[in-house]
């Protein structure tokens, strides 16, 4: 192809045009200076879904996978700050990712390589290398894989359904994912529609009911009763443990962090919305087993965000006065 291109003579008028207006490729623009100062920090930066205020205070993210890694890094004793971001900012296309410490502007290739962003898949390694109190590794049992499937399928499906497809939760969804993305009503509408369709697709893809059904066939009773069974199973697993952490670990592990990411959001974020359908998942978490999951969530929360408990207590005290 290319050889034939070269051999075709360029028409004279075009030739004249390009002679008078030569094509020049300019060098890439330098990053704006604020980009350097924003990423230049004494602490590594974790990019998550969060509101500006929560990010400044280091409060939990409202996205389950971001919260999972935020919790794990805190458990491991890694010092970091969090910055609100979106999927578009991530090199892998998904949050969270972590930008390691950069003390000098990245001018050399070596410096750029050492400060390359770390995607979620490598965060565990990073936490173990850089944390001051590396948590024990996940239990060496294949049973863990089976329980992990509970988080990946029924509990995740219920979370997706509650947040994205429950009409009563649409104000919450707007606040968390839609409003700050754009101020244009058209764009917001499109985002809302896309999020809903994507969530529906994800649920259908993992649930067995996909086989011949399809769009619009979602059976929400089945989604929530599966989630209730899954939460009960996790509660009974926790009841078996002697230490209060899953699989009798001496300290909370990655699995504890993944469970906390969902239970915390179900209990806290959903409680902000009103309407009984909206809070249904929080109720299920509270009822699972004999309250093991709720106390598990509270223990991790107190351990990692102790000051927050105080301020919440104070604000409640203010309210009662």
């Amino acid at each position, binding site marked *: 192809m290319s050889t034939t291109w070269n051999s075709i003579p360029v028409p004279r008028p075009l030739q004249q045009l390009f002679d008078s207006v030569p094509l020049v490729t300019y060098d890439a623009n330098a990053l704006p200076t604020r980009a350097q100062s924003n990423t230049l920090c004494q602490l590594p930066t974790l990019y998550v879904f969060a509101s500006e205020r929560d990010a400044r205070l280091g409060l939990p993210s409202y996205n389950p996978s971001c919260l999972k890694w935020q919790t794990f890094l805190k458990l491991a004793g890694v010092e970091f700050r969090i910055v609100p971001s979106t999927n578009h900012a991530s090199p892998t296309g998904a949050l969270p990712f972590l930008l390691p410490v950069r003390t000098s502007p990245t001018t050399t290739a070596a410096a750029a390589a050492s400060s390359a962003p770390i995607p979620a898949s490598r965060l565990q390694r990073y936490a173990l290398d850089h944390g001051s109190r590396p948590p024990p590794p996940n239990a060496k049992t*294949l*049973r863990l*894989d089976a329980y992990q499937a509970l988080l990946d399928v029924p509990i995740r499906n219920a979370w997706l359904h509650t947040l994205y497809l429950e009409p009563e939760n649409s104000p919450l969804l707007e606040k968390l994912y839609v409003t700050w993305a754009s101020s244009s009503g058209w764009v917001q509408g499109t985002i809302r529609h896309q999020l809903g369709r994507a969530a529906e697709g994800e649920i259908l893809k993992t649930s*067995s009911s*996909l086989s011949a059904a399809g*769009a*619009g066939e979602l059976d929400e009773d089945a989604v*929530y009763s599966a989630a209730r069974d*899954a939460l009960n199973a996790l509660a009974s697993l926790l009841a078996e443990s002697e230490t209060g952490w899953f699989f009798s670990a001496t300290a909370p592990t990655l699995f504890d962090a993944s469970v906390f990411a969902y239970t915390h959001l179900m209990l806290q974020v959903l409680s902000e919305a009103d309407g009984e359908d909206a809070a249904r998942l929080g109720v299920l978490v509270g009822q699972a087993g004999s309250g093991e999951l709720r106390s598990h969530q509270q223990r991790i929360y107190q351990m990692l965000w102790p000051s927050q408990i105080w301020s919440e207590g104070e604000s409640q005290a203010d309210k009662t006065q």
Partner: protein
Amino acid sequence: MVLELHVWGPAFGLPSIDAECLAAIAYLARTTSRSEYRLVQTSPSAVPTHHLPALHKPSANTWISGFSPIISHLRSFPSPSFHDDSPPHHGDSTAYSAFLTAHAAPLIALSLYVSSANYAATTRPAYSAILPFPLPWTEPPAIRASMSLRAAHLGLSSLDTDAAEDASIAEEKAAAAAGWVHIPASLSAQLKSKSVKDALTPEQAARIKLDGLAREVLDVLAEADWDRMVLSARCLAYGYLALMAVPDVPRPWLREVLLQGGYPSLCELVGRFRGPEALAAEKLPWEESAAHSGQSSLVAGLNVGARFAQGLIYDIPGIGEEWRRWWARRRKRSVRRPEDTAGLTQKRRDMSASGADTLLVAGVGMAAVLAVNAGFFLYRSGVPSFGAPVHSWQMVRAGLSSFGAAGAMFSGLNA
């Protein structure tokens, strides 16, 4: 009271072609006597919930579909029917059931549906045998598409050589249409490099990865203590493992890993369920689908025709999806379910389709009818039928008459 369990029909020597249907049949066969239930062989388009297995209670005319909803509904019946007496260990049972649906199902999808050789030689004929006449044209391809979607995250779409072949043919055609140089097929075959990889089937090429995937799943399942699980979890395990172990496929990687890879406990689990006393397809209380509803053959034929048309509409790009959504919403209102067995606080939403919706569907329907008509007239008026060459040249017969006046003079001699 007799319950009706609507399931996919038998295949591969198993009572059903679908894992959850297999599990539901096994559960009923183990917990109750033959007189208390009937099995109806059908396909999802024939039941109002559009999902199998589906439990129909004719006395109350209620429908429940999906394996775990059916099991939790059966448990609400008074003992001893539909109950298992095994010591319960619910936590593990729930976890391993979730694991099976999340990880074993994609493996089966790879082995029976994505892999072109296995699909063409085993799965498609099996569907053709259990579906009434025109339906094998619409339903199995739809199932295959959804199964590929389910296994998509494993990144092994290379097993689907149909898609690859279509792509390469299209590429060649495009090259031939645009190309100034045309290489005859006999030469181009030699031009292509022949490496070892080209000589392997896609399953052989990906064998190490496939083995790894299968082992990751089977290791977890083999470690579980199935005897301590509730019966429903064991039935589900049987459903999935049987579909791995039993079908006789031309590229049996999954079967080889399971049977020869050191998983005697899992093989034994399948064997126990397939044992002599239980689950021989002919011992199960099957019921002829047409006979059970007391329909004349004409009505049954019309029904099948409607299901076929429905399948065709689903396949129209763009419109099919919306149509399916709208249809599902309509149907949801018509399906009666038993009172909320889940016990979750819930209020029934009014799912009534809005007027705008109906308008949209009517408009789309009109447009579709117009498009079909226009296509038909275009087809009748001049466009050659499929496969016929668009232009045809005929070689001029070189006879004596082509030599001008002298030739014409002599041409009479020939005739």
